[in-house]
């Protein structure tokens, strides 16, 4: 029996996420140091994925029950629906800018521009189905985490808006708009860890 097989499943998942995260960060670092040709867009994507995976690994390792109380079958269905949608999103994002530069026809350009958003809706669908079929306590945890993340992100954006108006910061609007959803996901994940612990 290998050492990995003796670990609880959450810790094995944590190590997998850590490996994936470190691989992404290493590739991003190699790109940053000009060891291989990579666009700024792909570099940002790799760095973001790497940081996200390392963060997930830390959560899984130190707080194995942080996801709340969802039954295993429901979690399995969630991952079965979430992972392909997320992989499709990442795959599209890797070629999205090149595709956008290549397509000139306005109608087709609109379709290509909205393709990542459509894939994000696919990811959201998996999450909505997960919440809808959870038990009442899990739904409460998700609802509280959603409310906390909405408050934190909208508060943060409003504060940043005032700072930008006062010309103390200068964040390009497209960056600010694109980061709303990832910021919501990140704060949601952190909030859920703390809220789920209250019910343990």
């Amino acid at each position, binding site marked *: 029996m290998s050492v990995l097989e003796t670990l609880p499943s959450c810790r094995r998942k944590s190590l997998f996420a850590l490996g994936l995260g470190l691989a992404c960060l290493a590739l991003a670092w190699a790109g940053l140091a000009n060891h291989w040709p990579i666009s700024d867009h792909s570099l940002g994507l790799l760095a973001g994925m790497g940081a996200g995976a390392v963060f997930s690994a830390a959560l899984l390792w130190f707080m194995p029950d942080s996801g709340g*109380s*969802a039954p295993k079958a429901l979690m399995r269905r969630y991952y079965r629906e979430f992972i392909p949608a997320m992989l499709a999103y990442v795959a599209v994002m890797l070629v999205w800018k090149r595709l956008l530069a290549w397509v000139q026809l306005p109608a087709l350009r609109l379709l290509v521009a909205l393709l990542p958003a459509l894939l994000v809706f696919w990811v959201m669908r998996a999450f909505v189905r997960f919440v809808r079929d959870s038990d009442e306590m899990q739904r409460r945890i998700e609802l509280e985490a959603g409310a906390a993340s909405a408050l934190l992100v909208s508060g943060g954006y409003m504060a940043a808006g005032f700072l930008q108006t006062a010309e103390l910061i200068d964040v390009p609007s497209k960056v600010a708009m694109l980061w709303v959803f990832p910021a919501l996901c990140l704060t949601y994940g952190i909030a859920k860890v703390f809220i789920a612990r209250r*019910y343990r």
Partner: protein
Amino acid sequence: MKNRLRELREARGWSQGELAERLEVSRQTVNALETGKYDPSLPLAFKLARMFGQTIEDIFVFEQPR
């Protein structure tokens, strides 16, 4: 809210997992109910009461907030 869920469950020799299965909730939810960290919805409270053949007031003890 205080309750007699653990006592009633143990009297029937059920594990938290078994009760969770009967109630169609997770084991963690049963644990949170028993420790008073989570108050059930009215439908779940009725389901519990019927399962144990008691009234809701027999299982859950309402405490006036100070």
